[in-house]
């Protein structure tokens, strides 16, 4: 059981870091995407200057909960974790895709560059989401086994406390 827990903890530590950078990538994508929709006139109240962007930030960053279905929760204990080693490494990769200056100057990007940046960000995010899903499968498989052992009485909570 200890081995199982160790593998589970390793995987969930990695998963936490991947989820962290995934959210960073999604946020940057949505911020750059906001510029595109501003240009296409789609975001009517979106203004060109940074203060306008900051004003819009909550709407840009929030999850589109697809009509807010109540069940969009995994039902597990969720902590707000600080990024670990893997997160910082992946974060550097994300910085390579979109640098601080690029983000700051997004309204000065050409149409082509803007589209390009969005493609790269999307690609990076998709990669992270895939890795995250694989980690979920791995973790859930380990958790199933751990849960089974509790159910069958092979392990008790006293071993943990």
């Amino acid at each position, binding site marked *: 059981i200890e081995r199982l*827990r160790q593998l*589970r*903890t390793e995987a*969930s*530590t990695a998963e936490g870091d991947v*989820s*962290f950078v995934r*959210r*960073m*990538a*999604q*946020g*940057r994508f949505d*911020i750059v995407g906001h510029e595109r929709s501003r240009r296409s006139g789609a975001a009517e109240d979106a203004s060109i200057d*940074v*203060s306008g*962007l*900051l004003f819009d*930030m*909550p*709407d840009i*960053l*929030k*999850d589109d*909960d697809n009509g*807010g279905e*109540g069940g969009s*929760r*995994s*039902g*597990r*204990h*969720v*902590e*707000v*974790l*600080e*990024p670990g080693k893997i*997160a*910082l490494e992946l*974060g*550097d990769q994300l*910085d*390579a895709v979109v*640098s*601080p*200056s690029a*983000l*700051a100057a997004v309204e000065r990007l050409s149409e082509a560059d803007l589209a390009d940046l969005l493609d790269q960000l999307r690609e990076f995010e998709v990669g992270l989401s895939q890795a995250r899903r694989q980690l979920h499968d791995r973790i859930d498989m380990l*958790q*199933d086994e*751990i*849960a089974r052992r*509790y*159910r069958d009485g092979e392990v008790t*909570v*006293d071993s*943990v*406390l």
Partner: protein
Amino acid sequence: SESELSTVWARFKETEKQADRDDLIVYYAPLVKYVASRIAAGLPQTVDQADLISYGMFGLIDAITKFDPERGFKFETYAVSRIKGAVLDELRSIDWVPRSVRSKAKSVERAMSKLEAQYHRPPTDSEIAEELDITETQLSNIYKQISSLGMVALDEMLAGGGSETLTFGDTLADRRDGPGMTYERAEVRQLLAQAINKMSEREKIVLTLYYYENLTLAEIGKVLGVTESRVCQIHTKAVLQLRSRFDA
């Protein structure tokens, strides 16, 4: 662009120009998405995630203003806890938990604490209901009401104070035995483990599996052979019981 970033930081710290500050805010804003969505996971759907993000943005701006790049710490690490603190502080200040539910929870805790002192063991639901002069059904409805508010409501601050908002969940589940684990925190964690040990079997199992094994409520339900919502109720009762011991 590691160096590019540190250039922006250096420039901002030196000149304190709004423009540089804004660039940093835009650059780090997604941190708020991460924090807000994780906190939202513990709140009812009625709480608007966009609001949480705007609370978090203030925390981010505060973090950027206060951060000292010279110190050699990673900004993201510092910012995440500031943002989390800002969101939770604001939530508490707008007193989002309905007063009626809050007071019911308090009276259940008081009853639990009184009965525990009396019987030197965790009280049963029928004993608690009797003490509160309500039916067991009414008591179970109170548990349901509290559960429906989500984990954040239950997870009220422990050992108060300090820049770090310490919740039950964080303390119980903290696996970072490194620098993140201060002595006080380790001590509280120990006390909690002992307290959980003294609880009745079901509550003990639910708390341990949820916080220490990080199983989902559904997975715990399979272990106990009950529904997910039943597990949710047991969890609520268990946390109230823990709080009744610590608040006492």
